[in-house]
């Protein structure tokens, strides 16, 4: 039996009066790529933002209930230190959004806010992380140039490197390729495959082909409910639920 690194039980999320997630039980297996698929507005992005409690900072009117267990603790209970949690659960967004700083400073940002000050230590982290994100060779001669001058695909790999710099266990990715061209998308997908060796990845994607290509487990969400979760091949080739089959065969969504 493989171990789950994140486990949600009866997770409910509401924005004010409007409930968007109606009790989700989901296990994320350590070392796997888990894909969340489903039509727009099904709650998959909200679910992702709940896992690192970013939702609490970005939407003050959101109320969460149920449990999310991460490394043995319920992160929804009591005064969980969200800052420390986010160090362990990194996040990459839909649009590449590097800070308007140098490439070096972008990657060093996470370690810096967590108190790393020594230049040598930061340099090591930056080199290691950029190497992990397969960006080092392309940028090693211009680390101190603005990150905004990189191409879209490079920017997104920089954002992945930035998230890896705090040495997280889990990487959350919210449609990481939807703003990129096919070649850059290919690059990011290859990268995710390689990251799997060291990290657990949870990604939201709109493209079912992408989920099928790179994920181990796929969860299908619809109207704030988890309809089906299974091994990716199983889910795509022999879905157990009618709704899942209708969605993956393009009957709705």
């Amino acid at each position, binding site marked *: 039996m493989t171990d789950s690194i994140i486990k949600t039980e009866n997770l409910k999320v509401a924005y004010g009066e409007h409930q968007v997630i109606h009790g989700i039980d989901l296990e994320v297996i350590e070392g796997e790529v888990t894909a969340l698929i489903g039509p727009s507005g099904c709650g998959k992005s909200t679910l992702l933002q709940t896992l*690192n409690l*970013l939702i609490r*900072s*970005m939407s*003050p009117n959101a109320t969460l209930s149920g449990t999310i267990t991460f490394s043995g603790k319920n992160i929804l209970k009591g005064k969980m230190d*969200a*800052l*420390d*949690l*986010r*160090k362990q659960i*990194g*996040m990459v*967004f839909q*649009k590449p*959004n590097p*800070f*308007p*700083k140098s490439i070096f400073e972008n990657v060093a*940002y*996470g370690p*810096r*806010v*967590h108190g790393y000050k020594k230049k040598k230590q930061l340099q090591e982290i930056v080199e290691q992380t950029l190497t992990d994100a397969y960006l080092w060779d392309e940028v090693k001669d211009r680390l101190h140039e603005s990150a*905004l001058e990189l191409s879209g695909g490079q920017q997104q790999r920089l*954002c992945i490197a*930035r*998230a890896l710099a*705090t040495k997280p266990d889990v990487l959350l990715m919210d449609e990481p390729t939807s703003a990129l061209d096919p070649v850059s998308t290919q690059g990011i997908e290859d990268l995710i495959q390689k990251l799997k060796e060291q990290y657990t990845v949870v990604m939201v994607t709109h493209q079912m082909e992408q989920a099928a290509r790179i994920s181990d487990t796929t969860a299908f969400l619809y109207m704030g409910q988890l309809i089906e979760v299974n091994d990716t091949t199983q889910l795509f080739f022999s879905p157990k639920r009618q709704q899942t089959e209708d969605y993956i065969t393009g009957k709705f969504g």
Partner: protein
Amino acid sequence: MIPIMQTTEKASERLIRKNKKLSLKNPERNGKVIVYSAAFVTILATLAVTIFLTQQGLQSFYMSGINPLEFLTSTNWNPSGSNPSYGALAFIFGSLSVTVLSALIVAPFGIGAAIFMTEIAPSWGKKILQPVIEILVGIPSVVYGYLGLTVLVPFIRDHIGGSGYSLMAGVIVVSLMILPTVTTLSADAFNRLPNGLRSSSLALGATRWQTVRRVLLPTAMPGLLTAIILGMARAIGEALAIQMVIGNTTILPSSLLDPAATMTTIITLNMGHTTFNSAENNVLWTLGLLLLILSYGLVMLVRFLAARRKF
């Protein structure tokens, strides 16, 4: 009798007929004429003011024979004496010090209030602070001056020193006047930043304050500088409120508590009793020209900063 539309005609037919008429009139051309003439009038007005002010302002040099160097560097102002002198340095200094000092005072408060409104308490800040600031913008400058005259001047006289009528009173009144402008424009600069900057910084485990200080503030900087400069442009042009509290002497102030004067206050105080085309009148136009040049300079600076904005 008023002709009444035939009641037998259906509404739909009437509407179709009307539409036809409209399309015949070439609305494209009508729109063009309106916007082109609006643009033309605006440009013409700006040009006319600039040309007139330049011509009048330079008259004091080539017609009244005032030495430009004396005008800019001497503090001896006595245009109506038997041996008139036209040194305007004290007023240039007054204008610049009021402008720069009030900008220095307002910058931290305005940017701080903008951060509070946009980043710390967006809902609360928008509900309470925004309307308050809009009210502050709407108060006429004479009211600020009157308040300064009845509250600030006696306060300075009793608790700090001097007569109360002082450079300091002028700076404080102008600061209050430009604070709302700077706050609103700074809040705009923060609101313009893409949300991805906030969320990705927070997602890395940064605190809200670290996010503001390390990411949002540096990114918004060109916009914040623009806000301060536009505040300065307002400060340098303000006359009425300053005139009521600054004391209006022609001597170069040696401390913040000394009375002083600015270019604008000298113009408003003297334009009524000088005859057109006299040297005394011309030199006021020269002060006006100098104000125009300074505000052109500030506008150029704003344009330069806007070009450097990333978002």
